[in-house]
């Protein structure tokens, strides 16, 4: 369950946000702000993105899930103009009213982007790194200083203001990069694997901040391969595999529609009698993978009865299925050549 988030933005910030956000002072809750239809991108023979379509509602968090090489980052890059999509007469892109092929600058001005790599300027300190970017957005110096103070405070980096980048931990660098993306109070925040490689404390802090931004009607696009992250943050998910969309929906819907509610897992497969490897019961689905045997069912009692009949306690585990089960079910358990 989402817990209640208290408003964290100062009055000045909200005023500034209204001032910066050109033409979108009030966003109706259900308006779609991104409409992508049938876009593709090839790199030589590799079809990184194939006929991808989706739409994003204002103020929602839209997540892209997929293994490495699925095309998530490429899709993001196409949106903010770092990557040009294949020419195709029947594709359309509408990001806050603009097509990146024609109005790259408008989209970049409305967006904040956090790329996979922390591309900070090592020569400059924390505040200077942000100051440089404030120039890219043509922010007046005083306004930029106030905004930098505010963002450093928001990300709990205030005492690192004068620190060199090399003195920062991985988590601090990541928070700084996110702060940098928020300088211009973006309508759209694009986060490409925001918490990969970070410890749980930082990860939870970043999630918390993203939720707070959402409360302020910031639309968030996020790629991840952490199911927990997707489940915690995203209102809507799109699972990609080998450049294609394979399923989409609200996280709970994806669970309900695509997988049984419970799973019985046996790690020591040698204890399973051959006759139990294939079960004819219609309310149990078996999945036999090297090292792990899984039995899925919507009824936990069916699994309990089955386990009681042929297994000793301690040899198995029954749990609720989660997004990771859906993901692996959808994308397969084997590695492919892009991973």
């Amino acid at each position: 369950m989402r817990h209640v988030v208290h408003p964290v933005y100062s009055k000045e910030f909200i005023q500034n946000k209204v001032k910066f956000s050109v033409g979108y002072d009030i966003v109706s809750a259900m308006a779609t702000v991104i409409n992508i239809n049938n876009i593709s991108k090839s790199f030589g023979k590799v079809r990184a993105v194939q006929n991808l379509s989706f739409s994003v509602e204002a103020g929602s968090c839209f997540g892209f899930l997929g293994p490495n090489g699925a095309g998530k980052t490429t899709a993001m890059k196409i949106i903010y103009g770092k990557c040009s999509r294949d020419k195709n007469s029947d594709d359309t892109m509408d990001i806050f009213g603009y097509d990146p092929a024609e109005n790259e600058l408008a989209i970049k001005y409305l967006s904040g982007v956090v790329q996979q790599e922390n591309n900070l300027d090592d020569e400059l300190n924390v505040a200077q790194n942000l100051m440089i970017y404030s120039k890219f957005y043509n922010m007046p110096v005083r306004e930029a200083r106030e905004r930098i103070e505010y963002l450093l405070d928001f990300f709990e980096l205030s005492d690192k203001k004068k620190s060199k980048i090399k003195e920062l931990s991985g988590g601090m660098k990541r928070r700084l990069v996110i702060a940098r993306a928020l300088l211009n109070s973006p309508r759209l925040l694009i986060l490409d694997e925001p918490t990969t490689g970070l410890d749980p404390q930082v990860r939870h802090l970043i999630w918390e901040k993203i939720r707070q931004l959402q409360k302020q009607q910031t639309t968030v696009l996020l790629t991840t391969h952490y199911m927990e992250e997707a489940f915690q943050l995203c209102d809507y998910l799109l699972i990609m595999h080998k450049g294609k969309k394979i399923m989409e929906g609200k996280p709970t819907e994806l669970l309900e529609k695509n997988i049984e509610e419970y799973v019985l897992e046996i790690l020591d497969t040698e204890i399973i009698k051959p006759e139990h490897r294939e079960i004819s019961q219609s309310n149990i689905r078996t999945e036999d993978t090297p090292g792990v045997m899984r039995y899925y069912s919507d009824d936990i009692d069916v699994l309990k009865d089955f386990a009681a009949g042929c297994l000793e306690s301690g040899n198995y585990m029954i749990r609720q299925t989660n997004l990771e089960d859906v993901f692996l079910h959808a994308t397969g358990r084997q590695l492919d050549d892009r991973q």
Partner: protein
Amino acid sequence: MTDSKVPKYPPLHIRLYSVWYRHMRVYTKNLLSNGFPPFVEPLIFLAGVGLGLGKYITEPMGGVRYIEYLGVGLLVTTAMFTSAFECSFGTFIRLEFEKVYDGMLAAPMTVNNLIVGEMLWAGTKGFFFSFAVLCILAAFKIIILPYGLFAPFVGFLTGVVFASLSLLVTSFVKTINHFNFYFTGLISPMFFFSGVVFPVENLPVFIRPVAELVPLTHSVRLVRAVCINNYDPILLLDLLYIVAFIILIGFLAIHRLKKRLVN
């Protein structure tokens, strides 16, 4: 959506300025270590010539003392070197190692803005390095002010020339070691055979057209004219060459780097 709602993203001159500002801030962050060499290097050079080599070259060269001949040449070679380094090694590191451009291109600017800003910054460095040499030359009364005061502007042009050339080279380079070919094969020969160390008229006849092809020869001719305040109309050809070179090579560099930055 109507055009009236197009966001007020920064206008062109601000976008170019912001790229320039980024480079300026990073460069001036280490002002002492970055600011010293342009003043010290010409000192070493001129001391070497004044104390040693110069004594053996008693005949005037190009109508002036040898130390003046060489010193005036240094006004543009220093701009050439700093700009060539900035837009080869510097650009490559920003592009491939630090990924600085990836971040910048997510802000409201195009690849064109980024590269042109890069060239303007290299020109600025050319101006500054040229100015440093001018200070040394003036301090030792090797050239006469105020004419020489215009030399840094030729330094600026030289900086932009070698920025466009180096950016074009960078667009081809896969590993940073490849720049050795550029510096050994093109930049060093230019230093020696473009009328800096001795007049191009002294080159063998069949090599002279080659000297006219490379940009430094034209920069040197311009800066010599500036320093002696003697403007021959033929210099317009040198200026024309430099402008054409910047436009043509700069255009190619942007075109090729765009493929690398926006894929």
